[in-house]
């Protein structure tokens, strides 16, 4: 225990000094049928190396759009995203975007999917890397299975493995567990945290689920409804594994509920 604590402290010291992502006044306006729809309004944010940041907002507020800009799939109307001090100009294999489980390639096996981005490696290295990630996400025995033979949770783990396999330094996750049932979803959060603690990638995680954000993130960025602005950034100062009935957890969670304007009584 003492060992892990000191490791965590060392990491905190290291990560405190390096900025991974810097968003500088990102705005985007979509033009549809002659009318302009403002989706993002001057989003500015800094993300530290190795940090787990959740972007939280109501459905349709533009949080996926924001993630697509940072990942390089969309150009902002104004402002600029910077990663490692470089302006984002397009998608990059150093930063992998994880969709909901529909993003796995249905014509490839589990092995084929995990190995998809490893075309620059030698055959042995590739096989080794695949075996490692098959094991890491617990898909042993399903190496030759096709996605349609897997459950939703397994497909999601497969997609996470495919992303981690190319050893990116950053991951974008767009409501990755949104289509899973609530029990599988809890398991997947645990899995993701476990892998993140092992591999220490910077993670930007988009969700509309307040509980999910507070369980996972180092910081939660709360967005307003459209056009999305940053309402508040909440530091989640609870070490993992988090006790979701602890007073501090409930306090942070309820704070966000109130921020969004929801009473937590149904």
């Amino acid at each position: 225990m003492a060992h892990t604590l000191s490791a965590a402290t060392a990491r905190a010291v290291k990560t405190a000094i390096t900025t991974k992502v810097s968003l500088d006044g990102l705005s985007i306006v979509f033009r549809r049928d002659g009318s302009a729809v403002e989706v993002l309004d001057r989003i500015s944010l800094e993300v530290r190396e190795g940090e787990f940041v959740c972007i939280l907002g109501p459905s349709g507020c533009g949080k996926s759009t924001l993630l697509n800009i940072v990942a390089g799939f969309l150009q902002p109307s104004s402002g600029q995203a910077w990663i490692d001090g470089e302006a984002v100009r397009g998608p990059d294999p150093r930063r992998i975007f994880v969709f909901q489980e529909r993003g796995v390639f249905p014509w490839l096996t589990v092995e084929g999917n995990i190995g998809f981005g490893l075309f620059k490696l030698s055959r042995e290295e590739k096989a080794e890397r695949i075996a490692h990630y098959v094991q890491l996400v617990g898909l042993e025995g399903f190496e030759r299975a096709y996605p349609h033979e897997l459950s939703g949770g397994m497909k999601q783990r497969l997609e996470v493995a495919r992303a981690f396999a190319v050893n990116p330094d950053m991951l974008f996750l767009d409501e990755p567990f949104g289509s899973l049932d609530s029990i599988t979803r809890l398991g997947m959060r645990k899995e993701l945290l476990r892998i993140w603690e092992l591999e220490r990638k910077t993670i930007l995680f988009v969700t509309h689920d307040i509980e999910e954000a507070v369980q996972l993130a180092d910081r939660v960025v709360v967005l307003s409804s459209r056009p999305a602005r940053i309402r508040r950034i909440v530091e989640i100062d609870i070490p993992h594994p988090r006790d979701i009935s602890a007073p501090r957890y409930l306090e942070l969670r309820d704070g966000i509920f109130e921020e969004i304007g929801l009473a937590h009584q149904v």
Partner: protein
Amino acid sequence: MTPNVSIRRWEPYLWPLCATAAILSLWSAGVWWSGTRVFPSPVAVERALAELLRKGLLWRYIGDSLFRVGAGYALAITCGIPVGLLLGWNPAAAAAVNPVIQMLRPISPLAWIPLAIVWFGATDLAAIFLIFLASVFPILVSTMNGVRNVPPMFLQAGQNFGLSTAALLRRVVFPSALPQMLVGLRIALGVAWLVLVAAEMIAVTSGLGYLIIDSRNAGQRYDLVIAGMLIIGLIGLGLDFSIRHLETWKSVRWGFRHET
């Protein structure tokens, strides 16, 4: 236990066999009852088939017909798939060419027969050309649509992993469009076999289509006509069965609604 299992195994064949037997007996009874001299009975057709076999015509005609269909179909694949990929990938080119394709598509290949004979004479090439025309459009259009329907998510994922455009086409677009392409290939093969008979009635002096028209012209041999029709039907069934089999390949199976 065992008798039950063996009944289960035979069940898929049992009812089709019963139905075929029933139709054959109806056919026999109809010929016998009406006393027709034009329409042959099943037995007469069977004798005609034996005659074809004895003269060595049956296998030769089947071979010739399959060769023509194979050549025209292969040509349609080699043209239709690359052009379909190109047009599906490049919406501007597709928009430019699409009106012409959609205008040519509803013209029956049979309408091209006069031109085919002018260009190629009464040769195999004329028949192959007609089969090519009949099968190229379903292949081209299904490939084009398959490429257009590739989910943007797959393209984004491919780009994200750093694939070049060529690699993206080969490793994402092609396999993603493949199930829809297979549907087009299957339709095209059916149409090719349909058109073959008409093509062989006009352009050439061998093959199953020729057998039918020649049997009628040379002595009103309707037993041979029906024999030819049966063989065409059986081979068509076989072709469809084989191409359907491709849909069970593991890497395209996701695109079809098969039970596991």
